[in-house]
């Protein structure tokens, strides 16, 4: 299962560049038509929001994460849980644009 960090819970949402501070996660299950928006449980915390987000994604069985940037602690946790990290280039402005190239 793949996850994209997004600012809003709809298809036109801009992609969030900072993993830990994202408001929503877009879960992409088997194909791009089967998606689900879930709010980030770490978003309410001022500290360690990234850690809480990684723990949440690991518990949901996520295999790869797509975002613009990852912090040092988050990256180490992803490596520990063997979750693939993908850096989305800035040319993809919103979720719809990203889903078009996602196969």
């Amino acid at each position, binding site marked *: 299962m793949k996850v994209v960090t997004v600012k809003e819970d709809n298809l036109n949402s801009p992609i969030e560049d900072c993993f830990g501070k994202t408001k929503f996660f877009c879960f992409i299950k088997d194909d791009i038509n089967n998606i689900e928006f879930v709010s980030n449980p770490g978003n309410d915390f001022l500290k360690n929001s990234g850690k809480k987000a990684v723990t949440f994604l690991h518990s949901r069985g996520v295999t790869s994460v797509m975002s*613009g940037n990852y912090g*040092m602690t988050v990256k180490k946790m992803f490596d520990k849980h063997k*979750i693939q990290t*993908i850096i989305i280039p800035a040319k993809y402005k919103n979720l719809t644009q990203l889903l078009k190239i996602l196969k």
Partner: protein
Amino acid sequence: MARPVKQRKILAPHSDIWFFPAGNRNPDADSLLFLAEEFEAVKLIDYEGLNHSKAAKLMKVSRPTFTRIYKRARIKLSTSLVEKRTLKLSGENIYYGDNWHKCQNCECIYNVVKKSNPEFCPLCKSTNFINILNID
């Protein structure tokens, strides 16, 4: 002859390579070269909140060297802010602490979890990708 400059370790590649100030009339003409090591130093100290010795260990340089890199970065950042100059990121003399690949088709950058070469890009499934150098 002086000793060659040691390579700096960078956590992850950066997707954007230019920072344009909105008020600059001619952004290409007077750009400042912002080295990837300087970007990493500012990120580790100001964004991640680490101290100098911890950040120096992560970048595999001595603490005095790290302080010099950080000082140079702060001077370039302030010059860019005050003089409205463009910052151009340069990835010279660095290596990455992970096995990173860049897709030539969709331009995404991704790491490989298992220690084997990927067969295709995880986004567009293209086989046209390059391995970003990792000598750790």
